[in-house]
């Protein structure tokens, strides 16, 4: 075989194509690292978040420690090691033993070497209560108005479930009486005070009206007491692992589950129920128990209100900037300022929102429209409206930049065609340019929503609170209450993780709430993306 000479062979290898261009692995590596980190983040939150709902089995342990022998029941939450003297490492486990009212702490670390025996013994029950978190105990008997049922007899569990169902109804009805009726009553009394103060009613008339309302109030209280009577005859007796007898009123119990006596499907069903309750219930016990419904509601309402404000403002500003303003030094400066606004730390927007919206605008509104109620502020205090406006300002640059880009991407030929058809400039923009750039504008709105929904720092100053007594939209006239404070998932995470009295108890909820926040942002974004893709199909611009 003849060796081709170097001069004659036009296709002599440069050594690059065969081995690949240098440094491609670095770009691929950068991307891989990013993907791995995203997957790790989502995976961690997903696993931790979902597993916090899984009903774990209760382990009964015999412990021989320095403090003598002891028996306890609980589920294992964590395994770790701690260093001890002599450089040894001692295996330890963290268990949740509940019954915070008895032991003071519900979480506890145990050295594994002190555990003499452990078994998953049947009969143990996890009982959710209105106070002190769950209890872990062996049921003994249930006292009902129609007689006592002993544990182990036919129908004991059904009777417990019935009692819990009754208690749920009672709680629902009393909540209705207390929140709605007594709430309205209290507002009426307060209105009379205000009317009296500004001299709208005579003192005697006011006193008479107050009398009527007072009577009504007493009647409502009696109604509530009557409702509560339904659950009064119930009493639940149990035995803790270390042999203490405990008893709870029927009105204290919210749920029961026997993890040790349930098969996989029952436990899975229980997990789904817990998740559902987490979504629809209100928080209890400094947010560490119960659900996050008000926070979900607050986040969604706040984000949508923000979008409602930022979209027209941003789009209109971008239209002027791109279509009408004379492109020169001035516009360039404005554009730089807008871009820089996106880089301002969000807490600064919070401070601005507090100073401008709450103190200046809100106080002015109070002076003009709610002077009667002063010094109690109505709008002159943080609330969901001011939070939405603050975040609208925060996300404004995103919308402006995206809209400008979308407008400038509309082909020149299409604009000229519209003008050549005798359209005025505004007609061309309104009928041709804006429809063609809608997908791009939607992209900006999606980005703004994602940013706004996840923002926490400014909200602490302008309206998000640990616990809001009522939702910003409800069935009390005038139905929409833009001045109310609200709960927010992002702030909820911060509050649980850092401000909670029982950090260990709050930990599972932190992950569950984080998961929920991610899912919520995902749902909002997906909705917007679906809308955008529909528009894209409708207003597709031809490619030459």
């Amino acid at each position, binding site marked *: 075989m003849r060796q081709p000479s170097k001069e004659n062979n036009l296709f002599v290898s440069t050594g690059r194509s065969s081995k690949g261009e240098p440094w491609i692995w670095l770009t691929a590596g950068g991307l891989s690292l990013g993907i791995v980190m995203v997957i790790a983040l989502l995976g961690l939150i997903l696993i931790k978040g979902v597993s916090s709902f899984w009903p774990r089995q209760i382990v009964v342990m015999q412990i021989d420690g320095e403090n003598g022998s002891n028996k306890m029941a609980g589920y294992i939450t964590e395994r770790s090691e701690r260093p001890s003297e002599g450089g040894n490492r001692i295996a330890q486990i963290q268990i949740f033993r509940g019954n915070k009212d008895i032991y003071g702490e519900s979480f506890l670390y145990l050295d594994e070497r002190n555990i003499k025996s452990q078994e998953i013994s049947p009969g143990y029950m996890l009982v959710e209560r209105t106070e002190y978190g769950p209890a872990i105990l062996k049921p003994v008997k249930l006292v009902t108005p129609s007689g006592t049922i002993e544990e182990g007899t036919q129908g004991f569990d059904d009777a417990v479930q019935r009692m819990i169902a009754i208690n749920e109804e009672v709680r629902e009805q009393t909540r209705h009486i207390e929140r709605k009726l007594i709430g309205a009553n209290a507002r009426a009394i307060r209105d009379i005070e205000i009317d009296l103060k500004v001299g709208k009613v005579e003192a005697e008339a006011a006193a008479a009206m107050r009398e009527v309302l007072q009577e009504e109030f007493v009647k409502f209280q009696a109604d509530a007491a009557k409702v509560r009577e339904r659950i009064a005859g119930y009493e639940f007796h149990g035995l803790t692992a270390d042999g203490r007898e405990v008893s709870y009123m029927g009105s204290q119990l919210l749920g029961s589950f026997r993890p040790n006596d349930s098969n996989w499907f029952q436990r899975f069903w229980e997990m789904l129920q817990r998740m559902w309750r987490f979504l629809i219930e209100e928080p209890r016990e400094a947010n560490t128990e119960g659900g996050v419904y008000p926070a979900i509601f607050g986040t969604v309402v706040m984000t949508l209100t923000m979008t409602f404000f930022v979209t027209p403002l941003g789009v209109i500003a971008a239209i002027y900037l791109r279509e009408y303003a004379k492109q020169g030094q001035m516009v360039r400066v404005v554009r730089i300022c807008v871009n820089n606004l996106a880089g301002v730390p969000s807490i600064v927007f919070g401070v601005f929102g507090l100073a401008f919206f709450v103190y200046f605008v809100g106080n002015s509104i109070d002076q003009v429209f709610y002077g009667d109620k002063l010094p109690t502020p109505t709008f002159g205090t943080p609330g969901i409206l001011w939070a939405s406006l603050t975040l609208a300002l925060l996300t404004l640059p995103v919308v402006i930049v995206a809209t400008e880009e979308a407008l400038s991407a509309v082909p020149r*030929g299409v604009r000229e065609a519209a003008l050549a058809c*005798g359209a005025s400039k505004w007609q061309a923009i309104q009928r041709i340019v804006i429809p063609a750039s809608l997908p791009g504008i939607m992209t900006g709105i999606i980005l703004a929503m994602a940013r706004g929904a996840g923002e926490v720092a400014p909200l602490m100053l302008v309206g998000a609170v640990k616990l809001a007594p009522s939702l910003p939209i409800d069935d009390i006239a005038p139905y929409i209450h833009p001045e109310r404070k609200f709960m927010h998932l992002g702030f909820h995470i911060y509050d649980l993780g850092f401000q909670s009295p029982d950090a260990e108890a709050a930990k599972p909820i932190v992950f569950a709430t984080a998961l929920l926040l991610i899912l919520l942002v995902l749902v909002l974004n997906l909705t917007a993306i679906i809308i955008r893709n529909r528009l894209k199909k409708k*207003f597709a611009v031809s490619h030459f």
Partner: protein
Amino acid sequence: MSATTATMPRPDFIHVEDYNFWYGQNQVLFDIDMEIPECQVTALIGPSGCGKSTLLRNMNRMNDLIDGVSHKGDIRLNGTSLYDPDVEVISLRKRVGMVFQKYNPFAKSIYENVVFSLRVAGRGKRCELDETVERSLKDAALWDEVKDRLHDSAFGLSGGQQQRLCIARAIANQPEILLMDEPCAALDPLATLKIEELITTLKKQFTIVIVTHNMEQATRCSDRTAFLYMGKLVEYGDTLQLFGNPKQKDTEAYISGRFS
């Protein structure tokens, strides 16, 4: 004021008078002086950058959109100056339709594309719109191809059909003049042929000014031809005369292809 109602075609329907034009400091048209007759096809030819598109785009003041332009001289349309302060540019563009090099239908249905000029003029009566769509599409020789899918997206059409749709859109509001800026540059030969046939039929109704790079096209479908070079009008006359017996050396060089 349709051109067809005039008893005698005007020989100076569009009158360009000593027209100079600048983009900023850069003069692109020098002392252009020409009369474009009514109901005929006038072709503007010349090498790239000679100013023929600029001249065309000034006939409906499309160049007003560009910052920093200025002009001297005048263009008269049926005797009225385009730059008369009383002339509103929107109503001017209603009288002067335009078709662009790159077909550019709107992201709307075929129907809505055609009636766009009526919609922006505030004429939205259903029967009038229907009538306009049928007439314009028939005039643009597109009706038979699209009559069953008037409400489909315009982007579903082929390139040649889209360009004919643009022509239908330009003539929908019955302008007097139709400006065509290289209307066949982006089309294949068959589609080009169709457009050329169309131009020949349309000149009965409209005064057509067409910019073209294709000299065969100019000979095939124009009545008069103007040769522009370096922003100046070198020669202007009957198409047959200009191509058969050019008076200027530059013209001869260009049409015989000896021009860089």
